[in-house]
């Protein structure tokens, strides 16, 4: 029986694994190789050099990385605060309403993120939904809210909301009600229960949710382009520019490698610490 499972596991993992090696691992290897080629070459038949990585430090690209990581961190913290009460209610209080919220949130995931962000542009721009109606009917003149850092963070919070919410719901629903009840019976305050029972026991969901939002936001581009104008340039923007306008593939690859290494190691760290079977609901 075990031998059969061993073989069937391997066989059924094969199609997806082969696909992923071909379309995920191989391209990343190409990027890694290109990143140590001299600037502005389009093939890999040159002497390796670390010139591109030097450019990252000397020409201010680290600032774009700083913006990307900083705004991602702000978005992650904000999202945690916004989502926790709702996630708690979805896991422990609501009954039918949990399903309604779940469906309502999932549906937005299927709408292209640039359509949703464009909706915010229409809402927030000068002469947009809010400022246009305020001017006409209330006589208040507002310049609009676009093209600054807070609105980019707002866009990240908006787009990555589901990626924080659902892992949190999963995590909080893993906290056994009996343990909370026992703590409450023994006289623990709500704050104490939150810090000493809820948070530690819901940690797998919190880790997955925070990590997912952080890495996705760190690699995001549409928010800073559509909502932020050119207020700040994030890392993904620089990577794209190096490939398109700059025609400098090796620099683009080096910048991509830096982002990939940061994100990849965070993701790897989180995935290796979390019990996937537990989160996804294996029984027993």
């Amino acid at each position, binding site marked *: *029986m*075990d031998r*059969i*499972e*061993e*073989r069937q*596991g*391997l066989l059924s*993992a094969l*199609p*997806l*694994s082969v696909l*992923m090696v071909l379309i*995920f691992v191989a*391209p990343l290897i*190409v990027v890694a190789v290109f990143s140590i080629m001299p600037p502005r070459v389009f093939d890999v038949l040159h002497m390796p050099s670390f010139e591109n990585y030097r450019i990252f430090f000397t020409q201010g690209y680290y600032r774009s990385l700083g913006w990307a990581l900083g705004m991602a961190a702000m978005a992650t913290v904000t999202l945690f605060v*916004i989502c926790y009460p709702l996630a*708690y*209610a979805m896991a422990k*209080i609501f009954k039918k309403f949990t399903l309604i*919220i779940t469906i309502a949130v999932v*549906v*937005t*995931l*299927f*709408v*292209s993120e*640039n*359509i*949703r962000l*464009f*909706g915010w542009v*229409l*809402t927030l721009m000068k002469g947009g*939904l809010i400022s246009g109606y305020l001017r*006409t009917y209330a006589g208040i003149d507002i310049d609009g809210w676009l093209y600054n850092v807070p609105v980019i963070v707002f866009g990240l919070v*908006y787009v990555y*909301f589901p990626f924080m919410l659902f892992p949190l719901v999963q995590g909080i629903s893993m906290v056994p*009600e009996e343990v909370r009840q026992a703590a*409450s019976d023994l006289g623990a305050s709500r704050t104490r229960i939150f810090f000493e029972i809820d948070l530690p026991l819901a940690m797998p969901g919190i880790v997955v949710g925070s990590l*997912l939002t952080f890495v*996705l936001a*760190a*690699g*995001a*581009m549409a928010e800073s*382009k*559509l909502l932020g104008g050119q207020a700040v340039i994030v890392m993904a923007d620089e990577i794209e520019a190096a*490939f398109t306008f700059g025609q400098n593939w090796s620099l*683009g690859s080096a910048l991509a490698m830096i*982002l*990939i290494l940061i*994100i990849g190691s965070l*993701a*790897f760290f989180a*995935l290796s610490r979390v019990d*996937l*079977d537990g989160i*996804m609901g*294996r029984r027993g």
Partner: protein
Amino acid sequence: MHHPRSIRIALLCYGVTLIVFLYLPLAAITFASFSKARYLTFPIRRYTFQWYEKAFASPTVADLLTTSLKIAIVVTVISMVVGFFGALAFARYRWRFRGAFQKFILLPIFFPQTVLGLALLMWFNAVGIIPTWKTAIVAHLVWIAPIATLIVAIRAYSFDPALEEAARDMGASTWQVLREVTLPLLWPGIVSAGLFAFLLSWGNFPLSLFTTGADLTLPEWLYAKMVSGYSPLVPAVGTLSVVGSVILIGLGTAFVVWSNRRRAAMSAGAED
């Protein structure tokens, strides 16, 4: 633990507020799509359906729809097949490298999609493939195949291995067990995975950006028009794309509910 009524109501209002907030930009776009003005400003003075008429008559929009549709259909089919087998390896069978396999499959979901698209562009260049809508299929799969696998895996976790063992004890071959027992049991999960795959591919922009070559998908066109050369068709086409997704979600949900009911009715019939 007991929660006072006031807290329940407050949380309920909080949830409703967040959902309203989530849909606000979509409402704004729909609203804007009826404005007659060529250059959109609010408040809207005159309303019209003309952008919808123009969108339906436009050959460009028809081309975009066809391209997006072709990509989404192929992505869906491939995701369902590899997702089915992948989910068995992910959740059902106990085998030596299962832990490593799970992590490997989840890794692409954490990567920025733009970077994945660029990496693929360089990979295509290295092996001499010219990007078209077909290469975009490959790009979408990097992100969508793992998600489809996860969705089937959730179903596979609640699967009772005894059913497979029983079939095998009664002399069914491995292939027969797979086809007659495993596949029907996982089918609702596979259908949802297909639905997710289709919709995620339909709406995807960052993975398409560098991998469609000269072809354009609907989200790519919308983005191009938003960034430069605004067209009054943008809100109308955007709204249509959203309405299309919503209809599909409705049909998909109806199908899942219907097949669950039918299964329940059949097993109730078998017990009688």
